[in-house]
Structure formats: C-alpha cells, structure tokens
C-alpha cells in the first residue's frame, strides 16, 4: 500500500509526523511549566478590580500619538485611578505612574513577588522592572483595597 487512495488518512499521517517533530524541535520549556505551576501562589485575597480604561497598545494607528515607543495605560474604579506611562528599552521596562484617590504606597506585584513603590505628594511613582506580567495594588483614602488586572508590561 502506498497510501494514495485516502487523502484524509494521508493528512493524518502528515499531522502525526509534524506533531512528533514539534515535540522534539519546540517542546514547552520546563521553566514555562514551573512558572505556570507557581502562578497559583498569586491566588488569595481578592480585591475590588480597577478596570482598564485605556491601553494605547490596543489603539489603532489613527488614535495613537506620535511617540509610538511609549505605552499609556489607565485603570479606574469609582474614586480611584491609576495612570501608567510605560517605556521599553534595552529589554527593560521603565514605568512612571500617577495615582489619584489612593493613599500610601502602590504595591507592584510581579510573577515572583511584590514590591512597594513609594508615592510622592503629587501621586507620582516610578520604577524599572523586567518585562513580564504585572499588576498593581493600592488602598483608597476610604481604606478599600483595589487592584488592577494582570497586564503584560
């Protein structure tokens, strides 16, 4: 049999071959699986969610600004807002933010832990971080805890 009678079976054969090659040529890296397992540690206290109002990375060419290398994100819930200005360079993320309606530091949560970012009297904060997933936690003046959803910075 040369397999020339049944195109569907031939396609199956070719797909099996591709699947076999993919398992050797491009397997899921072990570190990706390990990080995935560790993601469960981010489960825990829930908090009021600040919605993403704007992400300039979503916008079309017509509404984008001239400076394409800067990404703007804006989160909002009731009386609190967070504006982020994100710049990418040299494999690193440079972040400047502004909060309104919150008190105390902003907590930046990354896949592998949290860091507390001091906020100046105008509501500004800044840091550098590696590329990857991040979310922000803050406390409103009324004492509520608010967080953003995870975004890829």
């Amino acid at each position: 049999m040369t397999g020339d009678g049944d195109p569907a079976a031939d396609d199956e054969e070719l797909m099996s071959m591709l699947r076999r090659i993919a398992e050797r040529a491009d397997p899921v890296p072990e570190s990706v699986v390990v990080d995935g397992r560790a993601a469960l540690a981010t489960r825990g206290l829930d908090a009021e969610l600040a919605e993403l109002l704007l992400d300039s990375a979503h916008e079309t060419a017509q509404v984008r600004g001239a400076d394409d290398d800067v990404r703007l994100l804006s989160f909002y819930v009731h009386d609190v807002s967070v504006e982020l200005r994100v710049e990418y360079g040299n494999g690193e993320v440079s972040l400047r933010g502004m909060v309104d309606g919150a008190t105390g530091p902003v907590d930046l949560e990354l896949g592998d832990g949290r860091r507390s970012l001091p906020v100046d009297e105008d509501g500004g904060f800044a840091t550098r971080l590696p590329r990857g997933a991040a979310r922000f936690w803050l406390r409103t003046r009324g004492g509520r805890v608010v967080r953003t959803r995870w975004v890829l910075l």
Partner: protein
Amino acid sequence: METRTVLAAAGRGDQAAWDAIVAEYSSLLWSIARGFRLDRVDAADVVQLTWLRLVENIDRIADPDALPAWLATTVRRECLQLIRRTSRQRVVRQPDGVEPADPDPPVEHRVLLDERDAALWRMVGQLSDLCVRLLRVLMASPRPSYPAVSAALDMPVGSIGPTRQRCLRRLRELLAADDLFNGIHIGRDGGLS
C-alpha cells in the same frame, strides 16, 4: 477527574489540581504562542500571563468545559497585542529597516533532528501566517479539541478542517519541490521513509 472538579479544587488552592491543569494545557498555550511566531521569551511571557489570568478568574469560569477555549482566547489576544506593540517599537528603533536577530537558534542546532525532519519543520515556517497558526496549534499535545482550536484562531469550527486540508496541501507542494523529499510519498504505511 472532570474539569469542573479540578478547577474547583485549584480555586481552593489545591496545588496538585492546579499542576494537573498546567500539565494538561501548557502545550496548547505554548503552541498557540509559537504559532504566532513569537520568540521563546515572548511566548513564555504570554503563557505565564494566561496562567495568572486564570488564577485571577478561577472562581468566575462559568463553564468549566469551555476552559481550553477560554485559555486559547486569552493567549491569542495577548499574542496579538504583543505583536502590535513590538512591531511598532521595531519601527521606531530601527528606521534603517534592520530586523533584530532572531534569538532562536536554527532548530537543527538546538536538537538533533533528522535532516528531513528539520527541513520539513522549516517548510512549515514558510507557510502563510494562518497555516502556521493552525498547524502549530494542531501539533499541541495532547491534541486540542476543535473548540480550543477555533478559539486559538478566532475561526469557526467548520472552517478548521478545510483550512487544515489546504495548508497540508500547500506543505506537500513545498515538499515536492525539495530534493530532500524527492519521490517520497507521505501517507499511511511508513511515513517518510
């Protein structure tokens, strides 16, 4: 165990249940990201973001049976967004049109593949974006369900079969034009050899 049971256990913090979900769907997510031709670093980032989003929403997944499609949709959107963003940065940073080097070494340098396997793998990469996305997600292990594939490509379930057929036909044409595969029929009974 049913997906519903596993999801509920993971939502209560059961690490073994969560690990089972990660084991089951990592290949699906990785295959989707790689099908979008993301490099390994970017692919790792979008896969991790997808897991974090699932943890974030684990109590809100209304239909556990739709979990694979939910994961596929989430990772597809992040891939598209990352591609839009990085292609723009590339334009800004490299006005002379120099593309950054692919951080991926050629596949045959990373692993020892049979010469023809390596050639076949390269030819898949020469197909249209749609074909690469579709064939790559179909290579996920375990095999993805059609709803998951549909979500990964934002394509109706009914279009998957015909598109797959068309992409494999195109791949056979590339093979036929390559001396390495001269006169070799890929079908039942023995594959390439």
